[in-house]
């Protein structure tokens, strides 16, 4: 189990490097807040520990509820602010790229 998980860990690291290596400076902020939202995945840890453990003290439960709330803030807030930021970049796309951009967008939809 450990070895399989470590293999996944290493591969995921390479995926992270590969995906992020060529990001223009312009998008550094949205990228950071987007990845920021993704590590809110710890929410799963909170849910599973709280959901599957049977001998939790009330104090442990309290800690986990806070952890789940934290994770949710991280996920929901992260994706929302990223979307707001990106909306600003999107707003001026047609003006910027002109007909060529429109055409490309059309191509994508096909």
């Amino acid at each position, binding site marked *: 189990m450990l070895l399989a998980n470590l293999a996944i860990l290493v591969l995921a690291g390479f995926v992270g490097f590969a995906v992020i290596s060529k990001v223009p*400076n312009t998008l550094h902020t949205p990228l950071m807040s987007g990845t920021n939202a993704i590590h809110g*995945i710890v929410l799963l840890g909170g*849910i599973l520990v709280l959901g599957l453990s049977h001998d939790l003290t009330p104090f442990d439960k309290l800690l986990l509820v806070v952890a789940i709330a*934290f994770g949710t803030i991280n996920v929901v807030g992260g994706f929302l602010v990223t979307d707001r930021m990106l909306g600003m970049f999107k707003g001026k796309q047609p003006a910027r790229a002109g007909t060529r951009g429109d055409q490309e967008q059309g191509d994508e939809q096909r």
Partner: protein
Amino acid sequence: MTTPTVALYIVAFALLIYGLMGLTGPRTAVRGNLIAAVGMGVAVLAALIVPGVGNWALIVLGVALGTAIGVPAAQRVKMTAMPQMVALFNGVGGGAVALIAWVEFNSTAAFSGEPTYVMVASLFGAIVGSVSFWGSLVAFGKLQGLIPGRPISLGNSQQLLNALVVLAALACAVAIGLGNDSELLIIGTLVFAAAVGLLVVLPIGGADMPVVISLLNALTGLSAAAAGLALSNTAMIVAGMIVGASGSILTNLMAKAMNRSIPAIVAGGFGGGGAAAGREIGERTVRETSAADAAVQMAYANQVIVVPGYGMAVAQAQHAVRDMAKLLEEKGVGVKYAIHPVAGRMPGHMNVLLAEADVPYEQLKEMDEINGEFARTDLALVIGANDVTNPAARTDSSSPIHGMPILNVDQSKSVIVLKRSMNPGFAGIENELYYSPGTAMLFGDAKSSVESVIEELKVL
């Protein structure tokens, strides 16, 4: 893990990674973010359908609390306040990891009977998560202006203290590893790690914030991956590690843009060691200009290069700057924006603000692209940027920012600097540029200065 959960996790990975790939291009970014968010939703769903999951009321309570806090915060935050918001969202993620590790400790009686790797990964998550939570809170406080942005440090004893606190956190963790099950030890681990977060970020000046925020982002990702190892949850491993890797890349890029090594930034604030006082400036005069003169100079320039910095963000001057640029363009003056990679308090901070103000994308120039143009430009307009324009980075080897790549503002024929006062920037370093004969200062709030320039331009 059951088959449906695993299958959903795989779908979630694909969506998260595909979404992230979208985030790397301006055209696909909005959709990429949406896809990643859907991926996250699938991952949460996969966890909820694991057989035997109970305590529904509490789970729902936690999610509802988080949504009730996170959604309004994300919707109301101003674009200029984005860096602190990102820092805060990052911090709570780290906090969640630390809390989960704490509960793991309690519910397994100090990891008795658990494999060693579970204990190691949990304790790693506890330490790094706690460092990230408290470090991010300090970063938030600094960016929000709750605590002074200048470096707060203890001078020479700082590094010794940092080392001692790190050792104390590790000692608590090792004691747990050796079989002690006192709850004080896990609390000690978390508290000492919290102290590490505070002590490391407090001495870091505002100008280094882009590096700090991306570093904390990477740390939270790594702690999430560690928590995933401890819980044997592949979704957490994959997502956490991707963030760890991408955050590391960003951190590295930022540090390179400042010609500073990450250890140097973490070990001590900007200008630590008194290097800032290396060169006596003495009494020198600066030339002050008025909005009317500035407007005339701009209107008759061949080209104006705007160099925005944190001051523009603080004054929320981006819309006024855009209006000014429009007026200039109507008069036939070309306007470009020179964006230093670490201008502002977050990677890409200026790009977001100028995009908010609808500045055309092709006018935003990266440092390498624009640096050759300053020499051919009549006027550079520096709006609240300081260290990234300081020629001492090229010429003065005793300067703490020596070697940092800067914008060659000093090479343009004349320079107008919009600044509140003569106070040096966060780094506390005098800027030679202000005393150069070609430079004129326009003192005041960046937004009102630009607005008065606009008024003058209109009557020209």
